[in-house]
């Protein structure tokens, strides 16, 4: 059994789930191919070939009506109820037709022809609907080709069975045989795999349907319908060309019948070969695009051959392509395309495409052939022109389909994320303004402060009438914030109001704010000098203005010396001096020596204004000091490219404090230019995972044009290799009874490393293939693993794809401990090496470490301890 499974390219557990679907599809096609010869024989016997175009048009009309009525019924039932009920009803109708046909009424022949045509469409569509609802996208890739094979074998068996028993049973009695086979499908489906959760509850399905309908992009079902229409039209053209050439090539009826028999047998067998070998291989190896493109490409090539040499062997080429590929590879690939379509949309769309679109295309195709070959006088060979054109349109549709398929997965993953985290305040300017207008009357200071903060953060303007009374509020905090908010609006504050606050407000901070606004509105130098030489609060306000609009000549050494003595002004003095770009050594360094935190912080903020490279070394030193780190980082980021060389040097210095290196990395990411990106990429290979992780996080903020894609791919491959090593080691250690504390620590470390590796792999994939989509894919791994893998399969190309999917889908090979531990000793992370050494000594004895050398202090310490202990 295992050998059969491997030969079929299946995973463990696939075979028992696939077998009932294989059986059901086999029996369905057996029934159809028992009925089709019976239908043709009865119709030709009664109405002749002349009736065929009209009955095809009737099929198109009836197909539309049936699809509408059936769609209404299908919408109320889940597939596991809908399918048995439909098959049962069709079996009963067959019994009824057996009785009606015995009356030899003319209308009964037309009705039966249409009925068999619709039965064929409906039953195959339902079986695929079930399969589509029961298998996830990864399983579908493996089993859909095989289920399709069941159908092809069924068509061969059905045809052969009819040939063998028709003369003995009588044509009409073939209906009873077909009804029996349809009932057996219902029995086989009892063992079919259960439907996936999206089909569990009707009410849930209805709720989902309304959500799906509201949010779903209909692009995928529309493109599928377009492609089905094109293929349906081409099929009619090709069929007519083929029949006309057979008619010319074979004079006798027996010759024609013999040729048809041989040709369809050959086509069925070739279709079987395609289905068994080509379809699974093409789907697994190259994905959907090539599989969907196979039929239009072959049809186009066949039409080209017919043009080049309109003799008989060439004429068979398009028909052979259609017969060999349409119900094998094309059907299986089309079913895979349906997988990401939301469940409710899928059910309706599938039935519509499989019934209405197909029959409508047949009807339109028949009308077009009548029009082109009749009034326009085209020869049948000339129909190759439209076939070529339609094949080209189909190839274009295939390209769109593939991108829509990938988009549908991306959107499905994104929606899941948004469903989990959708949080919105619904806050906007109008809402805040409305609340403020009533709430500003509140006497509660905390409430008012909160509202004023909110108004500032949302950027509310035009509330000067409501804010004006707050300048007399008893709370200084309220007055200051109201003043600040009004300061953003040029006309809201008359100069007299500011002067009043400067002279009469009791709170120095309110005074300072009013001064600041006053000086910003009227930048008079004499006023500025008066303020600078005034009290501490006034000087501080003037210095704030000087920080924003530096005037170095006003900051004379004598004035600086005087201001240093004013505690309220020291921080803003440092900020103004730094922003003015005065010589660091002669002015700022003196100010910063033994200065309190707020002074140094003020100076660092002022440096951001100066854009002076001479500040960079001092700021780099400040990164090592915990309390200054945040301000220094922001200022270095504001200095931009001029700080990058020093930042890169610090970040790459393995001996520098870890926290300072991380701060440097964050700052490099803030600058995000070419040289800072180069430094970040280099840091990806740092021995310290904290550093390489920070670099990776930083790269997510860099513009894609700066990213070295080849190096990122190489690094991604290395991370995938590490992740595979983790899986193999976990498997090897997993079955050991009662592991010791060192082994347990190593196992826990491997778990943590696995999580980190996945995070890094998807971060790197995000840099290469879109951050949002890969983040959604990463978060979807737990709940929608198959969808994520299918998305990756269609997004990533080449060997990288195989390596990545292999990480998730292939079981690691069983290995002994020695090569695994040897591999761990080659890893860059010293913590992993140290825990591996400790676990190895525990599992294999200290002797296993003989010859192990490692220069890292942590690993050396462990090795020496183990050696001493032994």
């Amino acid at each position: 059994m295992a050998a059969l499974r491997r030969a079929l390219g299946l995973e463990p557990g696939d075979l028992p789930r696939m077998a009932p679907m294989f059986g059901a599809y086999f029996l369905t096609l057996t029934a159809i191919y028992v009925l089709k010869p019976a239908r043709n024989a009865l119709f030709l016997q009664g109405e002749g070939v002349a009736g065929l175009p009209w009955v095809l048009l009737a099929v198109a009309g009836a197909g539309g009506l049936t699809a509408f009525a059936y769609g209404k019924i299908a919408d109320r039932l889940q597939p596991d109820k809908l399918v048995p009920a439909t098959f049962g009803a069709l079996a009963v109708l067959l019994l009824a037709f057996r009785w009606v046909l015995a009356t030899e009424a003319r209308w009964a022949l037309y009705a039966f022809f249409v009925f068999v045509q619709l039965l064929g469409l409906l039953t195959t569509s339902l079986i695929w609907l079930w399969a589509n609802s029961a298998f996830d996208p990864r399983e579908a890739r493996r089993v859909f080709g095989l289920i399709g094979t069941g159908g092809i074998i069924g068509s061969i068996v059905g045809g052969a069975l009819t040939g063998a028993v028709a003369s003995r049973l009588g044509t009409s009695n073939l209906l009873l045989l077909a009804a029996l086979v349809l009932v057996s499908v219902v029995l086989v489906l009892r063992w079919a795999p259960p439907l996936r959760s999206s089909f569990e509850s009707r009410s849930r399905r209805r709720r989902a349907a309304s959500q799906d309908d509201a949010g779903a992009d209909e692009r995928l079902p529309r493109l599928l319908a377009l492609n089905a229409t094109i293929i349906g039209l081409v099929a009619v053209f090709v069929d007519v060309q083929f029949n006309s050439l057979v008619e010319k090539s074979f004079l006798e009826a027996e010759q024609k019948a013999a040729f048809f028999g041989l040709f369809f047998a050959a086509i069925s067998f070739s279709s079987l070969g395609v289905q068994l070998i080509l379809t699974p291989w093409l789907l697994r190896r190259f994905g959907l695009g090539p599989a969907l493109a196979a039929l239009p490409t072959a049809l186009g090539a066949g039409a080209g051959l017919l043009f080049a040499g309109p003799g008989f062997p060439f004429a068979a080429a398009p028909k052979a392509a259609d017969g060999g590929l349409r119900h094998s590879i094309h059907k299986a690939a089309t079913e895979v395309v349906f997988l990401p379509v939301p469940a409710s949309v899928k059910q309706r769309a599938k039935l519509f495409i499989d019934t209405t679109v197909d029959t409508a295309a047949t009807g339109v195709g028949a009308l077009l052939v009548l029009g082109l070959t009749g009034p326009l006088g085209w020869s049948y060979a000339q129909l190759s022109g439209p076939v070529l054109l339609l094949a080209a349109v189909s190839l274009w549709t295939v390209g769109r389909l593939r991108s829509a398929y990938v988009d549908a997965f991306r959107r499905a993953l994104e929606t899941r994320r948004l469903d989990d985290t959708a949080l919105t305040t619904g806050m906007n300017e109008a809402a805040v303004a409305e609340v403020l207008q009533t709430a500003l009357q509140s006497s509660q200071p905390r409430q008012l402060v909160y509202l004023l903060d909110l108004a500032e953060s949302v950027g509310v303007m035009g509330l000067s009438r409501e804010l004006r009374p707050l300048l007399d509020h008893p709370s200084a905090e309220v007055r200051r914030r109201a003043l600040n908010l009004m300061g953003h609006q040029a006309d809201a504050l008359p100069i007299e109001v500011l002067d009043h606050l400067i002279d009469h407000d009791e709170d120095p901070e309110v005074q300072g704010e009013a001064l600041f606004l006053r000086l910003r509105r009227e930048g008079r130098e004499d006023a500025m000098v008066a303020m600078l030489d005034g009290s501490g609060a006034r000087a501080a306000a003037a210095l704030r203005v000087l920080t924003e609009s530096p005037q170095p000549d006003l900051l004379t050494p004598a004035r600086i010396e005087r201001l240093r003595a004013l505690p309220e002004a020291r921080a803003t003095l440092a900020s103004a001096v730094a922003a003015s770009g005065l010589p660091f050594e002669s002015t700022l360094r003196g100010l910063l020596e033994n200065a309190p935190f707020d002074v140094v912080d003020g100076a660092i903020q002022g440096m951001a204004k100066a854009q002076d490279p001479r500040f960079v070394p001092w700021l780099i030193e400040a990164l090592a000091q915990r309390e200054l780190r945040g301000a220094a980082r922001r200022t270095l980021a504001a200095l931009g490219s001029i700080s990058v060389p020093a930042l890169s040097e610090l970040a790459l210095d393995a001996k520098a404090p870890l926290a300072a290196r991380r701060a440097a990395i964050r700052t490099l990411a803030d600058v995000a230019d070419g040289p800072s990106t180069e430094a970040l990429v280099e840091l990806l290979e740092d021995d310290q995972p904290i550093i390489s992780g920070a670099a990776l996080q930083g790269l997510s903020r860099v513009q894609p044009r700066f990213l070295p894609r080849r190096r990122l791919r190489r690094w991604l491959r290395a991370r995938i290799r590490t992740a595979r090593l983790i899986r193999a080691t976990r498997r090897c250690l997993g079955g050991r009874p009662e592991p010791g504390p060192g082994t347990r620590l190593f196992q826990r470390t491997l778990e943590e490393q696995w999580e980190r590796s996945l995070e890094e792999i998807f971060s790197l994939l995000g840099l290469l293939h879109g951050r949002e989509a890969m983040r959604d894919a990463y978060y979807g791994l737990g709940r929608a693993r198959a969808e994520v893998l299918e998305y990756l399969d269609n997004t990533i190309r080449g060997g990288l794809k195989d390596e990545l999917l292999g990480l998730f889908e292939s079981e690691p090979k069983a290995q002994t401990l020695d090569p695994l531990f040897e591999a761990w000793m080659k890893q860059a992370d010293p913590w992993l090496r140290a825990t591996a050494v400790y676990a190895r000594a525990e599992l294999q004895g200290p002797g296993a470490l003989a010859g192990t050398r490692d220069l890292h202090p942590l690993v050396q310490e462990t090795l020496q301890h183990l050696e001493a202990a032994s």
Partner: protein
Amino acid sequence: MRTIIEKVILLQEVDIFSEVPTELLAYLAAVAEEVEFESGETVFREDESAELMYQVVSGAVRLHRGETEVTIARAGQPFGTWALFDDERRVVTATAVEPSQALAIAREDFVDVLADNVQVTQAILKGMVRRIRGLGRIVRGAP
């Protein structure tokens, strides 16, 4: 003298460190010091200022208020953990009831590690939340 790895093996048993990745636990292990107590020796007294948390490596330490025993911390169990988080004085006295070894982490060193490693802080907050929830369940009498 224990290695960093051995200290990590011990520290990962402390409930508030349970969410800290082992690699980052090594930073705490680096500042954890080994201390030894004779039988009957007092580790700390009630109302003393609290600066250190302990993890018993071997032996046993009795935690008591006067003669009332609160609990006995044995190998693998921590005590005095709250000393890492606030300035409150000790609420119990700790006395070794047999020759004991422990790992001790000073609050100042602990804060230094947290300040430089935000991931450690996040993981310890998770561990703290777990402990508080556990206490909440005990108060409510839930399982």
